[in-house]
C-alpha cells in the first residue's frame, strides 16, 4: 500500500492540530471535521479542508460515525486518524471504516473491541502471563455482587467504566456505605461519556504509581516498545503531568515492563501505536491496568526522549510500511516532562473554567515544545474537554528538564480564564516532585497545602490592579473613581458589594 494523499482527522483541539501537523510534514492533505461550536477552532483553520458534522454536543457531531464517514467519502480521504477520546477506541467506528474501504489509523476493530472492554483485556492479559490488578474479569451490575466482590478484595476499591478512559466513570470507594451512590455516579458518568454504563471492580492500591509503556507494531509482525512514562501526577484519576524516564523505574523494572508489554502485543497481534497502563506498587511490582489502543495525550514525552515522531509512524504503519527500526536502535535520551494546561481552577478543586481567551503567550527557547489548540480571541466551548495546551520540556537530565519546565510555566500566559499553570508552578517546586519521590497520592496531598502567594507578590498584584483601575478611570483625580462616568468601575463596585451581602 502506498502513502495516503488525504487523511481526515476525526477529532478536535490540540490533538487534531497535532495530527494535521504530521500530515503536513508528510505532504498529505488534511481534512478537519467540526461541530457548530468549533467553526473558529484552531484545527479547522489549520487544516487544508474542513467539513461540518453537526451541532455542538459530541453525540451529535464528533461521535457521529455516519457523518464522519460521509465527510471522508465527500472529500475522498483515504484514511481517518481518530486522535484520542471520541471515537478513537470505538470498535464500531473502526469496523465502519474498514467496511467503507477507508483506512482506520489504529489497530484492527477486533483488537479495539477486545482491549477496549477492560474486562476482556484483563482476561487476555492473564492468558498472556501478564499480572493484572486484582478484581473482576467481567463487568458487574448487581449491587449485591459488587458488595461481595468489594468485601473479597477489601476496601478501598475502584469502580471503573468497562469501556472508555481518561478517568471518566471512575470512582474510588472507601467504605461499603458509599458503594451504591458511587456505582450510580460511575454508571451515569460512563454512560454520558462513552454511551456504555457497564462498570467493573478492582482492588485500589494505597498510593500506587501509574506507569505506562508505549508500543508500536507494524502489519508485518515487527513490534517495539518505547519505554515508560510516569503518569502518577493525577487529579480526579486523570493525568496532569507525565515524565520519562520515570524516577521510580529501575533498569530491571523497565526491562520487565517492556517484556510484559511485548508479550501482550504479540498475544493479540497488535498493530499501530498503543499504550499499556500499569499500576506499580511500592515494591515495584507491576500490575496491568488496561491498554489504550490509540495515541495518548502524553505521547510527546516519548517523542522528546526517543526522537521518534509517533504520529508520523502511525500514518506510515497504517499505510503498510515496516517499522524503520528495531528495539536495539531505541534509547531514552535525556529527560522529558509534560504539563497539561487545562481551563480549570486549581484553587477551586480543578473546576472547569470556560470563557474567552483574550491573550496568549507561548513559552519558547531551548528544550521547550508547545502543543496548543487555542489562540488569542478563542472562546473555549463548554461542550468538550478543557485541555488548552501541553508544554513539554526536554533536558539532558531530570534536573535540567524541571528547570526548563519551571521557566516555561512562568513564561506561558493565558489571559481570560483560570488554568492549571499555577498548579504546575507549585508542583515543580514541591519537594516530593523535585526529589522524584511521589505516587498517585501527590496531588491530593498538595491540596492540603494551600497555594500561598507571598506577601510582596500579593502587594504587587494589588498595586497592578489598582493602577489598571486608576488608568481605566481615565484621569488622575482621586475623586473621579467610582463616579457615574466610569460605568465598568461602578459595575465592579456593585458586584463586589453584592458578593458580600
Amino acid at each position: 500500500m502506498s502513502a495516503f494523499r488525504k487523511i481526515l482527522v476525526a477529532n478536535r483541539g490540540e490533538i487534531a492540530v497535532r495530527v494535521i501537523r504530521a500530515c503536513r510534514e508528510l505532504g498529505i492533505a488534511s481534512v478537519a471535521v467540526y461541530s457548530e461550536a468549533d467553526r473558529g477552532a484552531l484545527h479547522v483553520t489549520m487544516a487544508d479542508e474542513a467539513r461540518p458534522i453537526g451541532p455542538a454536543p459530541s453525540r451529535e457531531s464528533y461521535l457521529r460515525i455516519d457523518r464522519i464517514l460521509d465527510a471522508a467519502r465527500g472529500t475522498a480521504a483515504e484514511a481517518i486518524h481518530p486522535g484520542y477520546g471520541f471515537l478513537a477506541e470505538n470498535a464500531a467506528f473502526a469496523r465502519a471504516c474498514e467496511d467503507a474501504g477507508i483506512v482506520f489509523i489504529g489497530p484492527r476493530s477486533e483488537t479495539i473491541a477486545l482491549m477496549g472492554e477492560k474486562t476482556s483485556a484483563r482476561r487476555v492479559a492473564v492468558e498472556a502471563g501478564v499480572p493484572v490488578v486484582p478484581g473482576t474479569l467481567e463487568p458487574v451490575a448487581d449491587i449485591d455482587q459488587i458488595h461481595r466482590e468489594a468485601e473479597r478484595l477489601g476496601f478501598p476499591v475502584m469502580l471503573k467504566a468497562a469501556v472508555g478512559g481518561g478517568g471518566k466513570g471512575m470512582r474510588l470507594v472507601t467504605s461499603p456505605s458509599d458503594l451504591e451512590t458511587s456505582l450510580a455516579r460511575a454508571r451515569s458518568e460512563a454512560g454520558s461519556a462513552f454511551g456504555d454504563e457497564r462498570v467493573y471492580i478492582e482492588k485500589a492500591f494505597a498510593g500506587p504509581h501509574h506507569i505506562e509503556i508505549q508500543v508500536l507494531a507494524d502489519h508485518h509482525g515487527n513490534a517495539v516498545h518505547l519505554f515508560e512514562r510516569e503518569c502518577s501526577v493525577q487529579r480526579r484519576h486523570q493525568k496532569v503531568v507525565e515524565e520519562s524516564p520515570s524516577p521510580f523505574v529501575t533498569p530491571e523494572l523497565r526491562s520487565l515492563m517492556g517484556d510484559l508489554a511485548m508479550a501482550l502485543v504479540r498475544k493479540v497481534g497488535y498493530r499501530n501505536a498503543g499504550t499499556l497502563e500499569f499500576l506499580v506498587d511500592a515494591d515495584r511490582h507491576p500490575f496491568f491496568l488496561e491498554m489504550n489502543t490509540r495515541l495518548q495525550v502524553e505521547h510527546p514525552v516519548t517523542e522528546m526522549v526517543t526522537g521518534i515522531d509517533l504520529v508520523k509512524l502511525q500514518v506510515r504503519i497504517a499505510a503498510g510500511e515496516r517499522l524503520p527500526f528495531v528495539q536495539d536502535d531505541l534509547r531514552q535520551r535525556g529527560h522529558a516532562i509534560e504539563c497539561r494546561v487545562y481551563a480549570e481552577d486549581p484553587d477551586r478543586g480543578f473546576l472547569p473554567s470556560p470563557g474567552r481567551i483574550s491573550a496568549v503567550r507561548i513559552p519558547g527557547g531551548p528544550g521547550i515544545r508547545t502543543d496548543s489548540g487555542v489562540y488569542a480571541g478563542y472562546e473555549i466551548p463548554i461542550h468538550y474537554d478543557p485541555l488548552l495546551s501541553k508544554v513539554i520540556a526536554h533536558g539532558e537530565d531530570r534536573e535540567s528538564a524541571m528547570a526548563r519546565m519551571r521557566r516555561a510555566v512562568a513564561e506561558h500566559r493565558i489571559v481570560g480564564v483560570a488554568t492549571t499553570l499555577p498548579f504546575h508552578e507549585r508542583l515543580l517546586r514541591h519537594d516530593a516532585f523535585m526529589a522524584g519521590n511521589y505516587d498517585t497520592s501527590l496531588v491530593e496531598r498538595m491540596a492540603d497545602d494551600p497555594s500561598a502567594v507571598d506577601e510582596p507578590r500579593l502587594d504587587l498584584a494589588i498595586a497592578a490592579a489598582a493602577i489598571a483601575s486608576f488608568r481605566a478611570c481615565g484621569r488622575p483625580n482621586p475623586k473621579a473613581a467610582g463616579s457615574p462616568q466610569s460605568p465598568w468601575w461602578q459595575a465592579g463596585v456593585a458586584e463586589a458589594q453584592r458578593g458580600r451581602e
Partner: protein
Amino acid sequence: MIVEARVGDRVSRVEVRAVGDRYLVSVDDRTLDVDFIDCGDGFLSLMVDGESHDVTVERRSGGFALTLRGSRVIVDLGPSLPAGVAPRHGSGSAARLVAPMPGKIVRILVPAGGSVEAAQGVVVMEAMKMENELRAPRTGTVREVHVQEGQTVETGALLVVVE
C-alpha cells in the same frame, strides 16, 4: 484614588497617585514606587526598586484577575471605607454559591435546611464532560436552594445560600 482591595481574606487600603510618569501606590503601610507600562493585550510591565515584573490583567466583575510568573491572583476592588469602619465581610454573613460555569445541575446533595461543613459538596454540576462537585463556601446551614436537578444554568447563576 483610594480604594479597598480584597484578595481572599485579606483586605487592604490602597492609594494610587500619579507622580510624573510613575505611580506611587500605598498598599496598607507599604509604599511602592512603580514604573508601569501597558504592553497591550492585558500585559503589563511593572518595575519596582529595579525589579521587573511581567503581569497580565483581565477585568472581571468586582475587580481584576492577574497572572504573575506562575501564579494567578484575584483582586477585588471597592470604594474605600472611612477609617474605623470595618470591612463588610466576615463569618457572620451569608455566603452565596454561584455557578462557576454554564452547565447542568445533576444532583443536589444537601437540601434546604441541611447543615454543611465548609468545602463539603453541595451541588453536582455537569460541565465540560465532567461531573463537578461544587462545595459549600462556609460552614453553616443551607438557607436557600435556587435550582432543581436537571436544570441548565448559566455562569454566575445563584445556586445555594449558606448562612
